[in-house]
């Protein structure tokens, strides 16, 4: 077992200082703004909880929050099952394994604004590959900048393209850690491939899937750069997710107070949902 040792704090100290510098000071700035009103020139007026009340009653915030949850829900519903299916059908060993892994990891290594720009070029109606296929070959009227549905579909496809590999790699790591003996035992028992999946593979993947769901939730809930580059939140407000709305308020309109209040609520929601996921998925671990 681990030994009790309070000197371990000295080992953690550098991390603590660096992260605290980056997290606590900016967070205090945000808290500070969230209860004040400013008209520039560093003059501030106390506002108390007004921004929070206004925000929680504002339709604009509700709409952005709703879009955000819808987006994250769709993303998780597509990427997690798809990632598991792909991981299950990947070869376990041989020459093709590293090739597959490297190719699959590639989208994740592309800077996020390049991902946005890339999909923009890809989806251009008539001159982009996707836009051309949709409009000319399939005859579907498709223009991401005009049609909200097309914008949503493109952003979701982009995110599936960008991040499904994360789920694949995690599930794959879980799968290769299962000893062969398990499969042999299942074969002797005459287990169907569904029961092999349900009683051997899925439980073994549970821990990595928890990580996958948590990371995918956090990152899709915080998505900003790709969507901003692709649609800028449009057409209209149809793809204005929380972070895009936040940056519009903070840097576009320079309404620091409301933006800060929104930041805090946003962060609190992310924390709460992550904590719920984490508690739900690890509650059986003690057994």
């Amino acid at each position, binding site marked *: 077992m681990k030994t009790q040792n309070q000197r371990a704090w000295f080992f953690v100290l550098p991390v603590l200082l660096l992260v605290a510098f980056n997290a606590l000071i900016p967070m205090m700035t945000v808290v500070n703004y969230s209860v004040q009103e400013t008209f520039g020139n560093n003059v501030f007026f106390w506002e108390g909880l007004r921004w929070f009340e206004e925000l929680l009653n504002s339709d604009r915030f509700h709409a952005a929050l709703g879009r955000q949850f819808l987006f994250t829900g769709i993303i998780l519903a597509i990427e997690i099952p798809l990632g598991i299916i792909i991981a299950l059908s990947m070869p376990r060993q041989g020459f093709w394994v590293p090739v597959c892994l490297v190719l699959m990891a590639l989208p994740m290594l592309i800077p996020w604004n390049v991902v946005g720009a890339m999909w923009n070029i890809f989806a251009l109606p008539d001159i982009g590959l996707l836009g051309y296929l949709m409009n000319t070959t399939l005859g579907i009227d498709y223009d991401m900048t005009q049609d909200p549905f097309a914008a949503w579909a493109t952003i979701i496809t982009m995110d599936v393209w960008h991040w499904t590999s994360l789920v694949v790699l995690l599930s794959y790591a879980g799968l290769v850690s299962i000893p062969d003996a398990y499969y042999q035992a299942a074969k002797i028992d005459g287990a169907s491939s569904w029961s092999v999946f349900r009683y051997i593979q899925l439980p073994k993947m549970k821990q*990595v899937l928890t990580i996958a769901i948590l990371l995918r939730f956090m990152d899709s809930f915080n998505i900003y750069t790709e969507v901003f580059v692709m649609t800028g939140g449009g057409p209209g407000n149809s793809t204005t997710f929380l972070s895009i709305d936040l940056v519009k308020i*903070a840097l576009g309109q320079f309404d620091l107070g409301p933006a800060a209040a929104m930041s805090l609520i946003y962060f609190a929601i992310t924390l709460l949902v992550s904590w719920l996921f984490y508690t739900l998925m690890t509650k059986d671990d003690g057994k």
Partner: protein
Amino acid sequence: MRKRSLIPIIYIIFLMLPIYWLIAMSFKTTNEILSGFSLFPQTFTWDNYVTIFTDPSWYWSYVNSIIYVSINTVLSICVALPAAYAFSRYRFLGDKTLFFWLLTNRMAPAAVFVLPFFQLYSAVGLFDTHIAVALAHCLFNIPLAVWILEGFMSGVPKELDETAYVDGYSFPRFFITIFLPAIKAGVGVAAFFCFMFSWVELLLAKNLTSVDAKPIAAEMTKTASSAGYELGLLAAAGTLTIIPGAIVVYFVRNYIAKGFALGRV
């Protein structure tokens, strides 16, 4: 069996299509791109790349990105190593709370921190330096590095530490000559992830710099001129940003799956 291997193949083709399109565009002239659809470049040209490699503000933006990513990777690993060791080997007052608090920083939306970071780094006089971006990226890279390294370290049996102490090793000597080689793969994987997340994050990088440490992201907005987008140039610049990631992932190819699992399989 053959039907089964179709799924990864289709998936990889789907992954490669937009990348192919970006690379194909980078070899086209802007006129060709705008004049109509063509699957392959009709007038194959290196002009877009020549523009980038002959314009100092273009290639310096790449160098800037690589500098702050490197500083960040080294810094994150150096401070995360002892911390991860403490979390994997000892119990101490508030260890669980501290670990969870570190992870919450991974959840903070970067958009929330843009403005406070700008003010903080301006106040301490680091605005527009590589150090500023490297430090800012520590916010999400250190927790991740601690998380990954802790996973790998927990896989090393505690007997290794005890045997070394019995043999009369001092802690620093044990850590550097015995323990570090034992978790080499973990360090490699953690460094890869720090590199990756620092390289792909551009919102903070863009807002913490203006001229001297300008990253490639900010430079890419230059392709939007009054005459419209220079799509060929944009595609070429984008293609070049894929290369460092591709090189780094090649080196850790045997560990990426385990690394994504944070060493926990």
